[in-house]
């Protein structure tokens, strides 16, 4: 299966996200075609300015994909995913804005039509693949491995179309599919990690992250599984020197890789701040 792919700025630097995504995609036969010459989507910070540039950034990514003949863009970051979708929605509603954005894009000979499907890789894996096509790659028994599915606050909001807005279950299903145990009553599933505010407002963001960690730890999860580089980094880094009980925070692709028998080294699990050691 072939998809357009928007890596986003944080993907490459995130602890093993790239390595695990590539390895797992290869195994599953998912071909991710990277959009050429992509730029930063602007994420929540730029979006909140509501300036014309804030629309041009995501629109350019989508226009580039269109130029490449891609009909779907797969994201691996919740902020990228929601920024592209929000831009798409706004540009469809506002003709005036659409014209202005296209005027800017025209300088590069680009055109945005909006005729694209914006998706997240986790959702693509769960919805587009057969469970059996995933299960057949399982090499390691993770049945004793309790995983807290942490979706973050941006994946399903405001649309609530791919899953429930407050209590999603897509990743729970994925965890089950690869033979691990989703933490069933994980209440922090969609709590906010603070995203980029962690830099400027650490004091406000730390309690948020503590809740995400504590809810997982107190309910005996062995790891927290994430879908977004920023979520992973915040939840992982917030534990550093916190003095509270710690839990490793991995990417869903790393969890899949473990089940598929890939080594912790291949999946770059040693890059996590909170050390990971599979003990099942």
């Amino acid at each position, binding site marked *: 299966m072939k998809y357009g792919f928007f890596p986003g700025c944080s993907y490459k630097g995130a602890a093993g996200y790239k390595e695990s995504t590539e390895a797992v995609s290869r195994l599953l036969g998912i071909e991710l075609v990277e959009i050429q010459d992509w730029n930063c989507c602007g994420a929540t910070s730029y979006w909140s300015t509501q300036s014309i540039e804030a629309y041009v950034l995501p629109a350019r990514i989508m226009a580039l994909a269109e130029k490449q003949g891609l009909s779907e863009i797969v994201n691996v970051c919740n902020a990228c995913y929601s920024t592209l979708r929000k831009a798409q929605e706004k540009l469809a509603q506002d003709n005036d804005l659409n014209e202005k954005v296209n005027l800017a894009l025209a300088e590069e000979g680009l055109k945005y039509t909006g005729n694209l499907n914006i998706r997240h890789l986790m959702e693509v894996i769960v919805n587009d693949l057969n469970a059996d096509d995933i299960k057949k790659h399982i090499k390691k028994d993770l049945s004793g491995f309790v995983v807290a599915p942490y979706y973050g606050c941006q994946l399903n909001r405001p649309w609530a179309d791919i899953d*429930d*807005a*407050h*209590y999603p279950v897509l990743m729970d299903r994925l965890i089950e599919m690869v033979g691990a145990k989703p933490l069933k*009553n994980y*209440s*922090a599933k969609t*709590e906010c990690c603070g995203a980029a505010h962690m830099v400027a407002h650490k004091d406000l963001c730390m*309690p948020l992250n503590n*809740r995400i960690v*504590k*809810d997982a730890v107190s309910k005996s999860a062995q790891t927290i599984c994430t879908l977004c580089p920023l979520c992973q980094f915040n939840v992982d880094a917030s534990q550093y020197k916190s003095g509270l009980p710690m839990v490793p925070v991995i990417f869903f692709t790393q969890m899949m890789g473990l089940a598929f028998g890939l080594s912790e080294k291949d999946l770059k699990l040693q890059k996590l701040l909170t050390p990971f050691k599979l003990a099942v």
Partner: protein
Amino acid sequence: MRESKPKIGVYVCHCGTNISGKVDVEAVSEYASALPHVAIAKNFKFMCSSPGQQLVIDDIRKNDLNRVVVASCSPRMHEKTFRTACQAAGINPYYFQMACIREHDSWVTEDPEAATQKAKDLVRGSVARVAHHQQLTSRVVDINPNVLVIGGGISGMQAALDIADGGKKVYLVERDPSIGGNMSKFDKTFPTLDCAACISTPKLVAVGQHENIEMMTYSEVADVSGFVGNFTVKIRKKPRYVDADKCTGCGVCTEKCPSKVLSEFDHDLTKRKAIFTPFPQSVPNTPVIDTENCLFFKKGKCRACEKFCEAGAIDFEQKEEIVEINVGSIIIATGFETFDPTPLTQYGFGRYPEVYTSIQFERINNATGPTSGKIVTKDGKKPESVAIIHCVGSRDQNYMKYCSRVCCMYSMKFAHLVREKTGAEVYEFYIDIRSPGKGYEEFYNRLQEEGTHFIRGKVSQITDMVDSPEDEGKLMVVAEDTLARKVRRIPVDMVVLSVGLKPAAGIEDIARMVGISVDSDGWINELHPKLGPLATPSDGIFIAGCCQGPKDIPDSVAQGQGAAGAALSLISRGKLEIEAAVSAIDPERCMGCRQCEEVCVYGAISYHPALNICEVNEAICKGCGNCAATCPNKAIDLKHFNNDELLAEMEGLMFGPADFHHGTDEQAA
């Protein structure tokens, strides 16, 4: 059939200054006097007044008028008044036509000259039309004095009792095994806090014992046919598998039954048996066997109930029965059901054991409920703090847009009960407090004095994520306090979701069977929101209680009594006059294509296979004309709105007298 040449009287009404303030009534009547066949044209201050009507009557008598046009308000206002005046003077009431020069003209036209011109046009149209009117006579039918009440909640029971006390026969159909409805589940009722059972149980008993009430519980309406005064209703009686005549209601069967399932009456808080009565005071107290959970029906063995029933009342051979009854009117009182908050995943209903719905909390408070009336958590502890969340599902664009009206009040009732029984802190999270009603605002004030905490803010989340160790094991209720302007996280032991009210499942089926409609939220549409709250557009079909929209017990009871009064008033008329302006199918022209049957929303047309023609039931026909417009063979004539009359009116409206093309003279002759 017309007797003689048309001789028309035209009367232009001033309606005080409502019309004459804009329209030059003098000029209009003068203009009218020159129109074809007009013998007399006058204007008068108030045509609907007695002198106004007398003017018409006298003119008819003195001048042998045989047609009348009144140019005044809308026919909805006074058509009947003037038809009656015509009849009093001895001419057929359908020889009357009304020109609406108020609603359609003086009220909506700015320029007086244009308004006067329009009045002349409208009068001209009416004059042209009335010349073509035909004599019509309405039929009279008998009214069957029996009444069917659908739904045995407090409003249905009240309606049944009032009619039965009035000496008329009532069939009360209730689909549950017992009558009583939602009120039977409550402990106390707001705002007086009187015991719900103490006031409702006597009603249940009275209904069960009344000689004029035939109760049909565990039954549903399967089909309704006929029309006002003469409905035929098929009732599906589900098999109870217990012979009601033999059963003594001892309850041994229930005791011995080994199969347990979640209780609907206790909203899943307890278990009931496969053979059960919903609650101890059930009327009737004959149990029913729920075949889905009965071991004998499922697996072919058990029959414990049969073994232990001394009365020999268990009958596994019982079959569903269809009973046909005849009634003259029907009262729908199917009530409501509570909103299921599971889709509001942020509130964790079903996930956190200490999150309850309001109707569950009613059961907890009730002496016959799961905790015998004690307010305790699932592990038996007395709560130290309880949160009550208002507007769950109500006033929510995603679920129900409307306010459910009773939730603020019952929430405060709960707060009072919690404080009284446990002394716990109570937090009411509300958007607005809605307490209109006698003694209701006073109840709110009382609650504030009792120390209930009122927090204005919609709860965004209920979670077990606590921040400090002393809150471990509690639920945190997160809301923006919009008065204090800060986000609050309040730890509590129990949460009550004050869920909204929605129409009882199956209401559309009932509505369809009796030919009425429901609104976009599913509540039954009343005839008129102010002046016809208990009637429906279908004659002889009345509504009462929550099937029309959320309301409290006093309003439901009042409506039950109102609907009973309306039904009794209909019965006491004994006979019914049927509107003559209905459609008629010419059997010679009808080719049996049945297209008219399809378009008639009132179900007034039936097909005769033997003759291969359609026929109109005049008692049901509302004269809407859908069929006449649809019939490809022009076999259908809508009386009083036939082509002749309509074309004459159109021509009259569009052309001056000189251009009259419709050959009034020849045809009238």
